[in-house]
């Protein structure tokens, strides 16, 4: 009897896993391997996608260097994940809501957050999270998984307000181990809310490999338990990520429910710049293998094949990025320092007696 049950369950899991083959459009050589899935993007849009990826790579390099000089605060490197981050973002409408994790700063900057504010957030200055009205993002989440249950709420809220918009959220492979990951997908599914959940499987939750996170072969298959759509995508292939997100968004808006997208990607750098040493948990062979899959190389090859990209064009983007980053740092430096009086003022709309008293105390101290 025991043997029979074992066999049955193995068979069922295998049947589920078969449905989650990796979706890809461009191979590592930049060749289209899935013509029928090609998204309908203009030449300008294709170039813009590349521009954003190049820009982000330069920004990442600069951010790491600024962090080492002590000119930036908390920073989580993104190189390697550009296709996953920017490809998915490119499928959004400007009024869609983004609930980012702490590594998902490129998406919110391209959604409209000024770069100097991203730097202020990195430095731990509240000016980094004072979002302009109508910029539909939330402060990057630090608690793994919290943004996922919140996304179910934003999505239900958008549906109730009859908005033609979705809520999209990002986490990593470690985030898929959190209870909130399941609760968020399950709530969004139960309410048929327009949500898209992206898990950027970059192989490591700080140092713990994805194989130690779960016995599940894919993260995408976890959608099955919540009764929602799930897809695994080559996360180094910007066109595949774009297409998967665009389809998920359309389905969500058509009332066909939320989607979980697992993007297979890799972060070349450390988990964060706060003392993490990737050589402790990754081999250089592994790094080399993933470097060959680089999203920029493959998309560059694809565009060059279509005569849409050149070295000159790339250099132009690099220079523009450097210039804008320099300016953004200057703007961040010019922002007045925060003080305790500011912070006390942000606690409540109508400050209760303890806050009123402390405001008085710190106003006196800080106006000296």
């Amino acid at each position, binding site marked *: 009897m025991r043997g029979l049950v074992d066999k049955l369950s193995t068979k069922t899991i295998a049947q589920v896993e078969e449905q989650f083959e990796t979706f890809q459009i461009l191979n590592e050589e930049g060749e289209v391997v899935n013509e029928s899935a090609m998204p309908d993007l203009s030449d300008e849009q294709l170039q813009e996608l590349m521009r954003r990826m190049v820009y982000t790579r330069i920004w990442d390099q600069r951010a790491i260097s600024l962090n080492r000089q002590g000119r930036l605060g908390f920073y989580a490197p993104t190189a390697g994940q550009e296709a996953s981050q920017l490809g998915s973002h490119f499928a959004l409408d400007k009024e869609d809501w983004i609930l980012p994790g702490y590594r998902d700063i490129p998406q919110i900057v391209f959604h409209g957050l000024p770069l100097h504010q991203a730097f202020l957030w990195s430095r731990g200055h509240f000016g980094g999270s004072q979002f302009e009205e109508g910029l539909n993002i939330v402060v990057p989440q630090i608690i793994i998984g919290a943004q996922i*249950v919140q996304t179910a709420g934003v999505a239900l809220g958008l549906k109730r307000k009859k908005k033609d918009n979705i809520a999209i959220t990002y986490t990593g492979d470690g985030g898929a181990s959190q209870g909130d990951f399941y609760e968020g997908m399950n709530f969004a599914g139960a309410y048929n809310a327009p949500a898209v959940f992206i898990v950027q499987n970059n192989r490591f939750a700080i140092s713990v490999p994805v194989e130690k996170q779960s016995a599940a072969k894919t993260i995408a298959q976890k959608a099955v338990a919540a009764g929602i759509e799930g897809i695994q995508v080559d996360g180094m292939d910007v066109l595949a990520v774009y297409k998967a997100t665009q389809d998920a968004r359309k389905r969500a808006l058509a009332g066909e429910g939320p989607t979980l997208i697992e993007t297979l990607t890799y972060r070349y750098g450390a988990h964060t710049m706060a003392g993490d040493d990737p050589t402790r948990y990754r081999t250089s062979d592994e790094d080399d293998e993933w470097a060959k899959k680089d999203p920029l190389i493959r998309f560059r090859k694809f565009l060059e094949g279509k005569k849409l990209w050149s070295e000159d064009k790339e250099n132009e983007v690099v220079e523009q990025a450097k210039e804008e980053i320099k300016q953004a740092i200057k703007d961040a430096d010019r922002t007045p320092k925060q003080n305790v009086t500011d912070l006390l003022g942000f606690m409540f709309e109508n400050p209760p007696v303890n806050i009123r008293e402390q405001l008085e105390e710190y106003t006196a101290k800080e106006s000296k």
Partner: protein
Amino acid sequence: MGNWTMAQAITDAMRNELNKNEDVLVFGEDVGNNGGVFRVTEGLQKEFGEDRVFDTPLAESGIGGLAIGLALTGHRPVMEIQFFGFVFEVFDSVAGQMSRWRFRSGNTQTMPITVRSPFGGGVKTPEMHADSLEGLMAQTPGLKVVIPSNPYDAKGLLISAIRDNDPVVFLEHMKLYRSFRQDVPEEEYTIELGKADIKREGKDITIIAYGAMVQASMKAAEELAEAGFEAEVIDLMTVSPFDVETVIASVEKTNRAIVVQEAQKQAGIASQIVAEITERAILSLEAPVLRVTSPDTVYPFAAVEDAWLPNPAIIVEKAKEVINF
């Protein structure tokens, strides 16, 4: 005017706000068709539809996340945690997320959420249902914690909580839901959050209490009166941040105080009140400020609840100890 239980008064407050504002939503486990395990949301789904009053999947963290997301999109969520002992499952949403949202967004995003939940001892619930966890909430900057002691206050305070643009944890003592009735106006009214109420005036000692301990303190005050002592009873109503001005004014008048809470003695609301009195009114005191609390054990199994919880006799005893110091 209705002669209502506290449960009815709370239902009426939610009905009032659901009527008043399309963005108010009431949700939680079993709050819809079933009307809540204490029938506090009875009839609301029928009246306002499943779109406004709805059941959630059984997952507290999901409920908290849902509330935050709904608040971001312009709603005023009134979320129920079925029993406050389950707050640990949603602690991140309440204490880690909605409480600091205004702060971390530099005052640009708000969380107008009311977290409603039954709590409190003396009704013989299973484990993890009755615990008084308001101290955990009070430790959290950015949250207001409100605990009414009667039907009239409950209605006015809950309407204020729902209209507040910051998160309010509104705790409803299970023993008070149906233990007595009171005249409650049918029309709307509000009671300001952060203000305490003097439930009985006196000159010999101040008894500071909240929730079910207000009734116990009122009984104790009657017994003290028979012994010739006039106790002033303050009902905090908002336990965090509490109305320090009313408390200090009273202590300066009576020169003596005890603080009564159902929660265990360690840390918590009573400790905070004693600290404030000591900082602000030490020279007015004729005796140490004592606390009447439960002992520092885990919340007990139902069979020993009565011995464990504070009661009027213990309050009288402590009050006399302070008066005769």
